[in-house]
């Protein structure tokens, strides 16, 4: 799980917050699933730019997941405005799942 960021400390806090967001079909959080690609903090405009993907372009829960990401970032960083950008390049693949995520999926 290699998330690109311009602020390591805040990114770690943001990722901890995003562990509350689960893919409801898989039951695993989006961080361990490897759906979060990049989190940047703009200290001047007070914005968080989160670039993420979905397990499939046709994911029926896409909008709900991005809404949940926005809400969780808002909750953890109330002074920032979160902007969520969905991308499918590179497309998500199983190698992006963290070790903990792999263990979780092997048990289910």
């Amino acid at each position, binding site marked *: 799980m290699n998330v690109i960021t311009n602020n390591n400390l805040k990114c770690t806090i943001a990722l901890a917050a995003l562990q509350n*967001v689960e893919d409801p079909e*898989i039951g695993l959080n989006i961080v361990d699933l490897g759906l979060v690609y990049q989190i940047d903090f703009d200290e001047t405009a007070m914005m968080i730019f989160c670039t993420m993907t979905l*397990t499939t372009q046709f994911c*029926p829960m896409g909008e709900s997941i991005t*809404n949940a990401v*926005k*809400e969780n970032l808002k909750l953890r960083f109330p002074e920032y405005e979160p902007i969520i950008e969905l991308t499918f390049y590179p497309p998500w*693949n199983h190698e992006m799942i963290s070790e903990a995520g792999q263990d979780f999926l*092997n048990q*289910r």
Partner: protein
Amino acid sequence: MGLHTQCGGVLIILAIISYLINLGMSMVKTEQENVHAFFVFTAAIWLLTTTIVGLLLVYNFTYPVLSKSSLYYLPLHAHLGIAGWFLLLITGIGSRLIPMFLISKYSNNKTLWWIYGSINGGLLAFVFIFLYTDNRLLMAIPLLAVVAGIVLFSYFCYQAYRQRIRKKLDEQMKVSLLAVLMMLIPVIFLVVIIIILLMSAKENTSLVITYGFIIFFGWITAIILGMTFKTLPFIVWNKVYHQLAGKGKTPNPKDLFSNTIFKWMSVAYIFGFVLFTAGILLDFTWLLQIAAALLLVTALLYNWNVIKLLMHKPASL
């Protein structure tokens, strides 16, 4: 047949044309090549074709628009509907949904194009042979082509199953994968029917009835039973909890229906299906009655769960 039937047929055709236009416009707007969309669009073209044939058959009862009786064309009408509409639609959508819900690494558009080509090639050959030749032996060509498509689709689903990331299969996916296996049963029956027809000119009625039953109550019903509870919960969840996502703990889509009812429904369905098939083949009325009761239980449990899903109210967060 009466004017009402004829007008009804025309209206159905208009509805399908509107559906085709909508589909076509969506496809034009899609930037990426989407093999699944081609399956759905072509399935809709076959639906239009079989509906036009159906309408011609209706008119043919009153005015002689066709060279033979309407009953003669019924196999054409039925198979264009079953293989053209149902099979193509289910393989097209199934090849998208099955790997997606299995969370599978497997993807193979080349195999999907072969399936598409086999089924459509088989259908075109079937239409040509049915209309222009009397040689029943030639029917082996479309049969083999469609069988190749079904076998390839089963292989595709098997690979998706083997390469799944989530190891445990839920009940809904088990029933959906069972439906894929059940696609092979009517093919076996069709081969037997053709062999019997070739050996003696007499049709085996109970085999023909079984063939029809195992298509509609076999893979078509099984995939509907399984996939309803993979797709509908997401639709309801999105409607009910869309605005609440991330604001607290929400139930998962699979919590919106009863898995226990689903399991009982599946058991009733499998026993009902097997016993009914045996009942037709053995001509045991009591077996048919028991099996019909089991299939009725299946339908009641299915509706119970669907109503439970649709009536779901959001839990206070």
